[in-house]
């Protein structure tokens, strides 16, 4: 490849969480420090459900089991709501012809013999892409466990850097369903109380639902059509590696965050939005790695947060709320608190805010995302030198 590498701008973001539809309700909820986790209406009558809190999306009308208003699945409705917000934010009337669309999830479909409840485990079908001549002929479907969205952003960034496409959309959704809930229960990671990331009393994860969509563009193309393009995806590193199918591997995580900072040219971080699900081992491993990173960068009070005590763990879509938190932290110069955190675990060079923390002039943020099957990812977001995020 010749010539300077293009800058990759994040020009649209859409989100649905237990705080409701939209990025703004999520940000306001996060800043409030209030958790949206509560017992599941959707599972209320299920004999297997033991009343653990979940991050359930309030669906207007029709109750918790209602399909989308247009007859699609709940997961489809969540996905399309997030996509509509992201496209509107990017000033796009729809998915652009020639765009790379990366849909993330467990699997695109199930075969014969799977129960009907599996409909919310897989897919969803992206109806907005039908009839659109996309790059590759159809949405790319990427499956990397709970790090899927981060892997999707990394793949999209590579396509944009190579000039293969001018626009990429990465999106995914997770709807509360008994199959995925059982898959987390059987490995005994579901907390009986709302998740408390980074807290000494953390007892596991809380499962949430929701969706996210991110529009990425070559910044020059974005500016040509009048977008500011002031928030950049500076780097994205992902690896499938590690010693265990279900546990964080310090060395691999450390390698990912170090590479992400190196590739992003980051010599100082203003905020880290961590994967931090609320499990003792996973959170501790992440804190060790981030503490070492802060040491390497010569920082003493690096703010670190997590959204999983606020809206729960969105599984394959879990990186989208992380992107939103980091993007808005840079935009507003505020490190959001971690809802659920009251008694922070020790970390020498990190600050784990329990209330919104001013970070004036914030320019660079790091995100981490991990999943079963050895999936590890780290991304950096930057405010452009010549623009606001």
């Amino acid at each position, binding site marked *: 490849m010749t010539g300077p590498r293009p800058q990759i701008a994040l020009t649209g973001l859409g989100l649905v969480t237990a705080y409701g539809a939209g990025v703004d309700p999520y940000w306001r909820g996060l800043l409030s420090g209030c958790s949206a986790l509560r017992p599941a209406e959707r599972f209320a009558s299920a004999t297997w459900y033991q009343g653990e809190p979940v991050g359930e999306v309030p669906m207007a009308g029709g109750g918790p089991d209602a399909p989308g208003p247009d007859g699609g699945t709940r997961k489809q409705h969540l996905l399309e709501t997030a996509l509509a917000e992201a496209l509107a934010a990017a000033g796009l009337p729809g998915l652009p012809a020639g765009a790379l669309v990366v849909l993330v999830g467990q699997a695109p479909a199930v075969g014969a013999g*799977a129960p009907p409840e599996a409909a919310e485990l897989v897919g969803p079908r992206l109806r907005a892409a039908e009839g659109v001549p996309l790059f590759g002929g159809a949405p790319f479907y990427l*499956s990397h466990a709970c790090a899927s969205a981060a892997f999707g952003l990394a793949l999209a960034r590579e396509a944009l850097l190579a000039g293969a496409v001018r626009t990429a959309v990465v999106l995914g959704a997770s709807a509360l369903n008994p199959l995925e809930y059982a898959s987390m229960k059987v490995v005994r990671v579901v907390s009986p109380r709302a998740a408390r990331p980074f807290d000494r009393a953390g007892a596991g994860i809380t499962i949430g639902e929701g969706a996210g969509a991110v529009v990425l563009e070559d910044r020059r193309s974005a500016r040509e059509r009048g977008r500011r393009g002031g928030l950049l995806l500076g780097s994205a590193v992902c690896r499938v590696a590690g010693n265990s199918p279900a546990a964080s591997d310090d060395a691999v995580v450390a390698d990912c965050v170090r590479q992400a900072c190196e590739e992003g040219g980051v010599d100082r971080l203003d905020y880290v939005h961590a994967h931090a699900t609320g499990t003792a081992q996973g959170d501790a491993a992440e804190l060790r790695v981030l503490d070492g990173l802060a040491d390497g960068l010569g920082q003493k009070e690096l703010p670190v947060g997590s959204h999983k005590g606020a809206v729960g763990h969105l599984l394959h879509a879990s990186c989208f709320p992380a992107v939103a938190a980091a993007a808005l932290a840079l935009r507003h110069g505020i490190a959001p608190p971690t809802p659920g955190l009251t008694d922070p675990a020790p970390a020498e060079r990190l600050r784990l805010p329990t209330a919104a923390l001013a970070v004036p002039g914030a320019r660079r943020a790091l995100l981490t995302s991990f*999943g079963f099957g050895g999936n590890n990812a780290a991304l950096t977001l930057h405010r452009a030198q010549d623009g606001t995020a």
Partner: protein
Amino acid sequence: MTGPVATPPAGAVPFDALPVAVLPSDVLPIDAPAAGASSGALAAWLDARGDAPGGPPVVEAEPGPLLRAVLGAALRRLTGEERGRAAVVLAADEPCVRAATRYGQRWTDTVRRLRPSDSVALETSELVRGLGEDIGWGGPLYLLAAPGAAGRQALLAACFLAAGGRRVVVAELVPAPDGAGADPAEESAGQPGWIAAAALWTGGPSDLPLEELPDTGPDAPGTLLGLARTLAEVRTPAAVRVPVGARTPAEAVPVPDPEESR
């Protein structure tokens, strides 16, 4: 890599000795694939392929060791930083669908309780974890699963990843062409199996004539294997047949320690 690999017959060219060649411009720009089959699929593989492209197929009893062996063979053609940073693009639509289907069936099974291994087995990427430890590979891997499109999209992704300055391995895991391939996490031996192929991408960003990609058919179970056949016709000089290796015990899916789970 775990488990044995069948010993190539005398005179067979080992994978690692194969040259990494840039193909003529009228041939698709991938190197002769490393390929293999799980032992249950070997007969189908030989029926379908006759001439094994690029050398003798790797034979493993289970899809995880099979896939890691085939990917490792392709990555070993690179050295140093090129290998360390290489990207792997894996087309695995059918394995993903089957893993989700199997999990759904297990979830409904009223006799057999759901196990932690069932949760782990949902993730097809688990078949690859551990690949890099022995060979110094630390690059990205992208697991693509769009039904019927993952193979072509893997080649497109290889194209733009290469344009970004990485060496790229494109790979595919598909059921045996008899259509009865096993679930990738199936414990029982004797199941019809899986076929894996991996190849180095040797072309540039404009080398991919998508319209010329061979169609998937009963004797070419996936796009990359279709390409393998094309390449075999172009430049594989002789048929190489490999005896079925000793069947290994089923690959155990490790049970996660709940205290360590994410």
